[in-house]
């Protein structure tokens, strides 16, 4: 039996290696994407365009505007007297947010001791809106403090005795707020996902389409041996791709996993087991390569959008989070981020490892049952 498996493996590897364009697609295209795409996935928001409606034209309003533009987060793209003109800039995508300083802002601030500033944010891009609002808010708070100190030192007002509570914040695991640390592991997982499940599906369906699977079916080769023979090459390719990906992360982005490689690779094998099972399952349901492609595209696309690689699982409603739990990639992405960034060990990721193993058993079991029926 081991001998049969050995011969099957030899055949599979030769078939894969012989096709140069496939090898190129399998290994080189993902590596290039991993080098380039994290640069595109940069969400450290720093160029928020702001339009200011200044109805006050006072020293205070000028000072606030200077403070905003010198913060480094904002770019002043409009300075108008009317709110509607500023709104027009938002419609033309020339401004992300509008700050309106009401008339007599400075005068009334002193007279009435309290004034409002109006901020309107284009919320179509939610993250940008969130961050833009957050930055502007903290700048205004700083500005408020400065003004108070000024008035206080010029002696116009008496200092208040109200107690002040301040917040000292620190950022662990990624103190420089480097977005690459967050996104590179996720992109690597997406690439491994696409390769593993799709290729297994294609490969088996190809044998179906060309009719060679019939020949294998009439030989005494056991079905699980045949399936194992189909899966091992892609397991190996997956591990190679993953290793190349880690190298790219290290060379181009300086990312060295904090946790142990042993944990990473053990999780990878667990993950690939599940994803190859999915590929196998899709293959049993398709007759032509076109169908295999359609089905795997369906799943990969949904995995990419919902597994937390680019979108936050935390802000999804409970039912959606429950669905996401059944996606193997979401577990592996979580593991990758925990091990690479925080150095989590086996004990910390037991839940995700277990979930992937269960999903793997279900997918593979289902595939084998279904394969027996149709072949």
């Amino acid at each position, binding site marked *: 039996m081991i001998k049969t498996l050995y011969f099957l493996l030899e055949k599979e590897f030769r078939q894969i290696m012989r096709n140069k364009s496939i090898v190129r697609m*399998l290994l080189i295209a993902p590596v290039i994407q991993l080098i380039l795409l994290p640069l595109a996935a940069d969400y*450290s928001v720093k160029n928020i365009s702001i339009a200011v409606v200044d109805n006050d034209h006072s020293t205070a309003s000028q000072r606030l505007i200077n403070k905003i533009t010198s913060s480094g987060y904002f770019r002043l793209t409009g300075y108008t007297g009317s709110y509607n003109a500023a*709104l027009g800039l938002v419609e033309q995508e020339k401004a992300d947010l509008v700050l309106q300083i009401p008339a007599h802002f400075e005068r009334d601030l002193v007279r009435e001791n309290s004034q409002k500033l109006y901020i309107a944010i284009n919320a179509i891009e939610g993250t940008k809106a969130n*961050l833009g609002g957050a930055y502007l808010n903290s700048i205004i708070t700083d500005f408020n403090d400065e003004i108070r100190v000024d008035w206080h030192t010029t002696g116009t007002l008496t200092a*208040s005795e109200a107690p002040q509570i301040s917040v000292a914040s620190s950022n662990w695991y990624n103190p420089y707020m480097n977005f690459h640390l967050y996104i590179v592991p996720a992109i690597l997982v997406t690439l491994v996902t696409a390769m593993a499940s799709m290729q297994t599906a294609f490969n088996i369906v190809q044998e179906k389409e060309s009719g060679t699977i019939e020949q294998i079916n009439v030989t005494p080769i056991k079905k699980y041996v045949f399936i194992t023979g189909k899966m091992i090459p892609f397991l190996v390719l997956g591990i190679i791709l993953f290793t190349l990906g880690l190298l790219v992360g290290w060379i181009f982005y300086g990312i060295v996993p904090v946790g142990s490689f042993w944990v990473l690779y053990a999780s990878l094998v667990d993950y690939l087991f599940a994803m190859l099972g999915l590929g196998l399952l899709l293959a049993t349901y398709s007759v032509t390569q076109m169908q295999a492609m359609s089905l795997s595209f369906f799943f990969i696309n949904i995995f990419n959008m919902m597994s937390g690689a680019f979108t936050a699982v935390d802000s999804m409603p409970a039912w959606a989070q429950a669905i996401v739990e059944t996606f193997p990639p979401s577990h592996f992405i979580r593991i990758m981020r925990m091990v690479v960034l925080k150095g989590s060990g086996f004990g*910390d990721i037991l839940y995700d490892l277990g979930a992937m193993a269960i999903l793997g058993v279900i997918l593979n079991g289902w595939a084998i049952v279904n394969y027996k029926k149709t072949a």
Partner: protein
Amino acid sequence: MQQLLTFIRKEFLHVIRDRKTLLMLFGLPIAQIVLFGFALSNEVKNSRIAVADYSKDPVTTQIINEIASGNYFDIQRTLQSAAQLESAFKKGNIRMAVIFPANFSNDLTHTGKATIQVIADASDPNLATTITNYITRIINNFNTQTALTAGQPLQIIPEMQFLYNPELKGAPNFVPGVMALVLMLVCTMMTSVAIVKEKELGTMEILLVSPFKPIYIIISKLAPNLIISIVNLFIILILSALFLDLQVKGSILLLTFDSMLFILTSLSIGLLLSINAKTQQAAMMASLMGMMLPTMLLTGFLFPIENMPVALQVLSNLVPSRWYFIIVKKVMLKGLGITAVWKETLILAGMCLLLFAISLRRFKIRLQ
């Protein structure tokens, strides 16, 4: 002409007969719009945090209540030691820890100043920034409340308003994005297989020796995909109007016209891939592995393009879905007219013509 119609009919039958592919073609857009429309959101809420209160006095209790009362935070646990903090972060249970030092109330009453320590898990830097800001806002509000009773002078109160999408739903951004992504990938994929399949099966030879013009072969291959994609477009528009409350604010005619332009561009890309590929597998790999992630990231609906390095910004100009995404946002969400999107429309038209011309030139009428 009669010939052409017969061929288009034949290609149609090919597509319609394959139920599984058809299911994907129509099922994918529906599933994505419904799933993404309801599930994806940018609003950060119910973040799991841990609280360590070493002071345990009325003020800290009051602040903790303030934090717990909104729907921003979900206090998962209270910590007793620094070791617990570390392990909670490593397990990924909490996103942030709020720590009140032991001398908190002492400091506050005696010096009038006290500090709360906030530690965020910055593996996701944006989430960390957002929730740190939430906490700061809550504490500032708390300060303001106590200040108002004590008469703090010169209060500037920022009033924030979210335009177009007040609830920070994901749908207004993701629906145009998913439209661009799905239409482009489905069109490219379906077309990329079309011609190479005939080559692989050997039927291309028969087509080429027949008196049927090569341009007709191409047209009859594209026609079914074009029609399917337009049907898809309307399914997406109807679904988002019904379920996601996203009606087309601008002219439907303009949107349809631009969508057809975009679909034709994607079909031409598929055609080009198909003409260059030797096997179906190579064509599929190129359209899936090669195009999926770049399209996803360079369209601009996940990550803002103006943040990217200049080289990638230039590269993103070559991605048709980038322009289509802008058109859909302007016409569908903001209700703007042709005066606002003529530039993008022209760019798509140019891309479409160029790609189609190249594929026509490269389409070989000889085998080898």
